[in-house]
């Protein structure tokens, strides 16, 4: 989605790819969006989508026991569109279409639902996935606030 206008605010940060930072990322995005007065539902949707993207980066991008950094960025545009980017430099996704399929998971423990991308798609207006095996993954999500 090419945007003509400049963002009126933006933020970016990097966090160690450890699971405790999933809630940290939700908190960061909540604080960043607070001045825009999003509705409770909008905020909950965005937090959930961010949680899924960050979890994917930690669990699938890097995997257990691997060091890495998760990059979280957000921009707010004058038309109240929020663009959120979650990026990792992990192993990447071999088949993005397959990964986005509901209930698909590479996890064998039976404890991952395979619904991460479906949640991101449902709770945002648009989801873009860029990935290269061996290089990493970039998730970009758009949501326009009311």
């Amino acid at each position: 989605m090419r945007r003509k206008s400049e963002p009126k605010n933006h933020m970016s940060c990097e966090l160690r790819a450890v699971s405790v930072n999933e809630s940290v990322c939700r908190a960061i995005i909540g604080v960043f969006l607070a001045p825009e007065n999003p509705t409770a539902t909008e905020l909950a949707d965005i937090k959930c989508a961010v949680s899924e993207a960050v979890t994917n980066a930690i669990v699938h991008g890097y995997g257990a026991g691997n060091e890495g950094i998760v990059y979280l960025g957000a921009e707010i545009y004058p038309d109240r569109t929020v663009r959120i980017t979650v990026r990792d430099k992990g192993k990447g996704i071999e088949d993005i279409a397959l990964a986005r399929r509901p209930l698909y998971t590479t996890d064998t423990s039976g404890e991952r639902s395979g619904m991460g991308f479906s949640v991101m798609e449902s709770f945002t207006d648009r989801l873009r996935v860029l990935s290269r095996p061996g290089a990493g993954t970039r998730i970009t999500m758009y949501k326009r606030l009311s």
Partner: protein
Amino acid sequence: MLTRDHVSFDLENGEGILTARLSGEIDHHTARIFREEIDRALLRETPRALTLDFSGVGFMDSSGIGLIVGRLEMAREIGATLTLSGLSQRLCRLLELSGVDRLCGIVISKSTEREDLFHETEIRT
């Protein structure tokens, strides 16, 4: 909600019904803690029915779906039923989105549209 201190359990075992009251936030980080505690109680008490009470849960992502499906399988293994209670509309939406309701014969009561009132949900095992 950044520490495990915000996750608490209240397990009751009366009439063969085990109730696990979940509170706090359920994500990939905390799901492991819930899973270990619930499974430990399940194997110890071997109840005929397990209820997961979500009324104290302020946030849940798809890790919660994995938690529910995993506990459904655990309950089946010991011959117990699984009931989900205290689900907000938001959590119901996640369940519907994941298709857990269709897969497991979940029953969602939509008696109200108010976010602050909760639905009773039963998974027939």
